[in-house]
C-alpha cells in the first residue's frame, strides 16, 4: 500500500518512483496506490505508473489505483488511464479486486 499526498510532479515523482521500485524489489508485486490525498498529478507522475506496471504484471501482480479525487480522476480519464489501470473508488475495493483475480491480469 502506497499513499500519495499533495502534488506529484517533476520534483516529487522521483521519490514515488524509488518507493515503487523498492516495493517491487522486495517482492511485493500487488500494490494499491491510495490517492485520496493526491491533489495534483503531472506527466512526470503519470510516467512513474507507466514505468513499473509491466514489471508488476509480469510478476503476477498489479498496481491498482484507489480513491482518486475527482479533479485528478479527470486527468486520468482524459488520458485513457482507466483502460490501462484498475482504478477503484476506495482502497478496500481495490484490495478486494486482488482477491477476485488471483494470478489474472
Amino acid at each position: 500500500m502506497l499513499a500519495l499526498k499533495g502534488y506529484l510532479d517533476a520534483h516529487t515523482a522521483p521519490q514515488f518512483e524509488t518507493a515503487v521500485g523498492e516495493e517491487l524489489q522486495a517482492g511485493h508485486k500487488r500494490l494499491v496506490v491510495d490517492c485520496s490525498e493526491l491533489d495534483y498529478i503531472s506527466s512526470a507522475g503519470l510516467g512513474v505508473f507507466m514505468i513499473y506496471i509491466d514489471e508488476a504484471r509480469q510478476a503476477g501482480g498489479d498496481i491498482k489505483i484507489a480513491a482518486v479525487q475527482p479533479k485528478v480522476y479527470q486527468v486520468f480519464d482524459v488520458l485513457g488511464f482507466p483502460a490501462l489501470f484498475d482504478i477503484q473508488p476506495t482502497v478496500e475495493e481495490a484490495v478486494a479486486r486482488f482477491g477476485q483475480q488471483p494470478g489474472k491480469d
Partner: protein
Amino acid sequence: MKRAVSAAAAVAGLLSLWHWMPRHDAALGDSRVTVGRKEAIEIATRWAAQYGVEIRGWRFAVTSETDPALMRIRRASPASRVARVFTPIRIRVLAFDGRGDAVLVTMTADGRPLSFLDRRRNPTGLMRADAAETEFARLAGANAPEFVRTADNVRTLEGSRSAWEWLDPALNGVLARVVVITRNGRVVNSSVEFSAPREAADEARRSGWQRALLMALAPLAAAAIAVLAAWSLFSSLLRRTDPLGFAARFLWVPAIAIASMFLSGSYQNEALLRSFDEGLVGDTRLLLGLTVSLLVLLGIYLLLAASWASVPPSQMRLWAPAALLVRGCWKNRQAAGQIWVGMTAGVLIGAVPYWVAAAAGGPRVRFLEGAGGLMAPMPFLEPLEGLASAWEVYLVVIFLAPWTAGRIRRRWLRWLVLSGAGALVATLPRSPFPPGHLANLACGAAMTAGYLLTYLHAGLLGAWFAPLGMHAAVQGARLVHLPAASLEAAGWQMLALFFGFAAAALAASFLLPAADEDAAVSRMLEAAAAPPRSQREKLRAEFEVARRAQRDLLPSAPPAIAGFDVAAVCHPAREVGGDLYDCLPWPHGRWMLCVADVSGKGLGAALYMTMLKGMLASAAHHAPPLETLASRLNQAVAGAGRGRMFITLSVILLDPAKRRAEHLRAGHNPPLLWRARTGQCEFLRPRGIGLGLTAGPSFEANLETQPLALEPGDVVVMYSDGVTEDMNPEGELFGEERLARVVCRHAGEDAQRLADAIMEEARSFRATAELHDDWTLLVLRCRPAEAPAGGGVSGAAVQDEV
C-alpha cells in the same frame, strides 16, 4: 535539544566566571577600580575647584588605560612597594569647554590624584607661593617621606619645574617620580611617572625570541588567511555574483555594532583624549573614525563574501537561516534558535581564559581589558562591539572552516588546522594573557574549538553572535564585581541587555513559524553549481537557435481552406516547448489538423515533438486511416520513450467539400465544438489512450474515430492542457467552463478574432502569474453561407491540393 544544551552551557559559563574571575582577572585583582565615569567626573571637578579652576558644566571625555611601565614593574617585582602603592590602571578625565580651554585630570583607579594638566589659554585660579610643594604633597600622599627632592623650581619653557624621586632600595632602578610645573604660583602641569629601565631590559632578554616569534606569527597567519579568502572570492566571482549580494545584505549586523560605538559616544570619548595628547582640543576625529569603520566593514564584507562562496553543500543548511533572514524572512524560527545557541555558547567560551589561567596557576587574564567603552556615556552597549570585531571568528570559523571542509578530507586534520590557525589568530584583537605568553596559544585553540562547535551546530548566526555573548558575559561579570557604583550598575545593565536579547531570541525560536530552509538550500546549491559566465552565454545562444528552429517547424501561417477559417497560436512556456499543432494537406483535398502535447517541457519534449512532426508529415503521403496512423504513432512513441514519455494527440481529418470530418483523440484534451444552430458548446470525447502509454493491444482496443458533420457557423477549438490548466496568482485554474464561455461569446466572429479573444481572456486571467505550460490553440470555423468567399481570411492564400 540544542537550545537546552547551550542554555546549560551558558549557566556553566556564568558560574565559572563568577567563581574564577575574582581570582584570575587582572582588572579585579589588585587594581582596586572603584571609580566609574560619574565618580571620576565628580572627583575631577572637585580637584579642579581646589586649584581654583571651575570646570562644572564643561564637556567631559573619560577613558581608562594601563600604565605599561607600572605593569612591567608589577610583573617583575610584585613585592615592590611602588608597585603596590600605585595601581596600573589610570583614569583620565578630559574637561573642555568648546572654546579651546581644556583641563586633563588623571587619577588612579581608586580615585587618588595622579596628574593635573591645565591647558587653558588664559589661566586663572588660585595663586600660592608654595604651589609646587602643595601639589607634591597631594600627589605623593602618605608616601611623601619616601621621596627625595631632585629639582627645585628650575626655569624651563613651560614654567618652574620641581621634581621628587622615590628610589626603591630593594630593587635597583625602579623609581617613581613626581614632577610639578608651576607658572606664576599656579600649577600648570603635575604628574607621577614610573620607570623601570633595568626590569624592562631583563624581561626583554628573558623571553626574547619566543615572544617575538609568537607575536610575529599571529599577524602573518591572519594575513595568510585573508589572502586566501581574497583569492577564493575573486576566483568564484568568475562564475557567480550571489556572494556579493549576501555579504552586502548581512553587513547590517556589523554595521549596527559599529554604529552603536558612535551612538554610545565611546568612540568620541577615546578620540577626544587621543587627539588631546596630540595637542588638539575637542577633536572627535569623526572623519577618521568613519573611515576606519568603513575599512573594517569592507574587510568584513569581503570575508563574508569569500566564506559564502566557499560553503560546501554539506554545510549549506548551516547558512540557510541567515540567507533567509537577510532576504527579509523575519518569521524565521531557525535563525532565532541559532542566535540563542550562539549567544549562550559565547558565555561558556568567555570562561575559557579563566580556566586556562586557573590551570596555569599564574598569569592574570587581561581579557577585553582597558576597553575605553567602560568609561563611555553608555557602557552597556559595549558588548555590541563583539558583532564587528571578532576577527579570529571571521577568519578561522566563518571562512576557513567551510573552505577546508571541502578540501581537507580527514576530520582530525581539519580540526588540527583550524585550532592551530585559531590559536595564532586569536591573540590578535586582544590577547587574554600578556603578549607572547604560551597560555595565549592554549586559550586561542580552546576558544576556536568552542566557536567551531558553535558554528557546526548553530551555523553562521551562531558563530557570529557568540562573541556578543562572550563580551556581554565577561564584561558584565567583571563590572558587577567592581566596587564602583556606576560600574556595577553598568555591569548589571550589560547582563540585563544580554539576557533580554537572548531571551527574546529563545522566545522567537519557539513562537515564530519555521522558514523554508529547503528552498534556501536549493537556491544556494543552484548558485554554487552555476557554470561559468561564458558557458552560460553559450547555452543561452544555443537555446535561442533551438527556439527559432522550433518556431520554424510550426506552420508559418494558417492554411486557407475553402469554406473554412483556421487560426492557430502556440506559446512555449520555456525557450523551447513540447506542444505542436499542424495543418497538413492530405490527398483528395482533405486537410489534417492536429494538436499534440508531449509530456514534460523543455528540450527533451521539444525533440520528441520534432519526431512526431516528421511522422505526421510522412503519413500525409500515403494517407492511412486515422486509427492505423494512431496505432503506428503509438508503437513509435512507446518504443522511443520506453514508458517514460507519452504524447497526447487530437486529430481532425477534414473533408472541406463535404463539410465532414473524422476526429481521433489519443488521450488529449477533448476539443470544443460549438454548434451554430443551438448556440451550445459540447466537448468531443471519443475513447482513446495517449500515445506511448502501452505498446500492447489495449491501445487499439480502446480507440475510436468520431465522425463529425459540420454546418456553417460551427466552430471546433482544439487546445492543449496549458490553456485549461493556466493558473492565476490565487491558484485558480482557467478550466474548461471558462474556455467554453469565451467561445460561446465570440463564436460568431472569424477564427482569428476568436483565437485573439481566447488569448486575451487567458492573459487577463493569468495576470501576474507566469505561464507554466506550453499554450496551444487551433480554431477551425466553418464559414457561414452568407459571408463572402474571400472575406475575413487571415494568413497567406494557399491553393488547395487536388
